[in-house]
């Protein structure tokens, strides 16, 4: 019963996320494309929750769907890119052929990877009482330096964005 429900939900969310991803690439209107991407993110977070990685699932929605995509949408609307245009990114026969070949290569890689048996991680989940500890403990003990370096890199990006935005013709 449980495995049946699990399989059902796995295929449900998996299929929706793949379909949304396809729709995301094929839509011409940027707003519609952005929304399909949000849908993909949402289904991925459902899959994370099914893998018992509830924290990652929540953060996926919070960061990608709730923050980054909203800002994307914002930019699309403010620059009035919302209407579909006739401009296409397809660049002749050569481009199409390359794209098809790359796609085939990735598909072959997927099939090759699916034949490998990955080792199953067992017993690493710990208790359900606290879902943040298993993530925060390694982050702030073992990987403290990479974590801090990453935050500094992000800070540099933020400061850089502000500096570039301020350097307009109107500012002195």
């Amino acid at each position, binding site marked *: 019963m449980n495995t049946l429900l699990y399989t059902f939900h796995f295929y449900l969310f998996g299929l929706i996320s793949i379909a949304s991803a396809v729709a995301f690439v094929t839509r011409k209107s940027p707003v519609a494309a952005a*929304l399909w991407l949000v849908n993909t993110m949402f289904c991925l977070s459902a899959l994370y929750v099914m893998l018992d990685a509830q*924290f990652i699932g*929540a953060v996926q929605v919070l960061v990608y*769907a*709730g923050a980054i995509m909203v800002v994307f949408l*914002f930019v699309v*609307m403010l620059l009035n890119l919302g209407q579909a245009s006739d401009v296409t990114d397809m660049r002749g026969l050569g481009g199409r052929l390359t794209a098809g070949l790359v796609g085939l290569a990735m598909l072959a890689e997927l099939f090759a990877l699916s034949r490998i048996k990955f080792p199953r991680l067992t017993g690493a989940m710990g208790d359900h009482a*606290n879902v943040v500890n298993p993530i925060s403990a390694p982050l702030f003990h073992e990987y403290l330096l990479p974590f801090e370096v990453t935050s500094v890199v992000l800070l540099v990006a933020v400061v850089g964005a502000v500096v570039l935005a301020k350097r307009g013709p109107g500012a002195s």
Partner: protein
Amino acid sequence: MMLATLAVMASDPVVYHTYYDPLVPVTALPWLLYTILKMIIVFTVLMVGVAMLTLAERKISAWIQDRIGPNRTGYGGLLQPAADGLKNIMKEETYPDAAYMPLFILAPMLSFIPSLITFAVIPFAAPFSSRWGLVEMSVADVPIGFLYILAISSLGVYGIVLAGWSSNNKYSLLGGLRSSAQMISYEISMGMAAVSVLLLSGNVSLQAIVHQQQTMGWNVFPLLIGFFIFCVASFAETNRLPFDMPEAESELIAGYHTEYSAMKFSMFFIAEYSNMVTASALMVTLFFGGWDIPGTQWDNIPPWTLLKFLLTLGFFFTKLLFFLFLYMWIRWTLPRFRYDQLMSLGWKFMLPLALAYIVITGGAILVLDMLQVPRSVQWFGISPFWAVLGVLNLVLAVLVFVILDRGRIISPAYSRLSPLHIARLRAMSAARPFAASQGD
């Protein structure tokens, strides 16, 4: 199977006493039944509650303005929400020609659904010992509790921004953009303020946060500043006065829902009120002990009887209604902020304050734990840990409110403009002769 289970439910509890352990959570079929029951009841109570809140809002505003308010439909106007609902269903749905139809129809739903499902993780009463085991009193007892609420409520902004954009109306677009900017800005302060609660409880599960407050005392005292930031930010998040920028009737007609009519308009309205309910419930859970009954430990320990369940439920709802009243009270007390004031309050005051507060709270908790100050209740029913943090917060509160009262941070209407700003404004009015000829 279902009928047999229901028959067992209806019979005498004493007979089945030997078959269950009252402290082990329910499993399998009873779990499913109880979950469905909780879903139906919580959804119904929320929807009816939202309808009654619209009436309460009108009654309270009437009371504050010394009027009578709606009193024609039903006894004392009690059926007014039903009449309003009926009216909204019967009204014509208008579809603007220039609107982008798929998103125009999707937007009210995107606003409506997140606002309803956030309530699912709020623990609203003490658990109840049924004859199959313990039933937790929240629809979904997820271990990520608070993060779930943050994640889902961050999706609510899509409804508003898409409504504004798809209407293809400049007032709607301005309302939608204002609103999304406001919600994104204050969401950060809100999350940051709640981090102090998570630091104190050491967990993100709302059940664990309630339990921590039961053993230690309500968080509102030791985390006073955090509560202040959270409260202000949740007013901004729910788009209520004094932060109702997205609507701002005098400037934007009706903001993002200008083009909406009938039930689609109603859905935005319901979303706003159920967001209010969730925000109030969150303030109660994070800072006011959730379903805890103050001054007694009787409600925190098993046996989980029906009486205990009802009493804690009553206390939760009393606290919830107080915050809902606060929302309406403030609406008729404070005027609307100007948009730049709103933004500078959010980014230049609330966010730095929240960040500094995380550092201070984290440091204080670390020091108190290193000094081995006991967290549990010690003298006169007061926990020393709680008291020391509380005194620290009182000092901080005095400092913060003195600074806030200086009138420099949120750029009040009478603040001086910089010479550069004045020059730019003059250049703008000189460039538009029509505006200049109007005399301003």
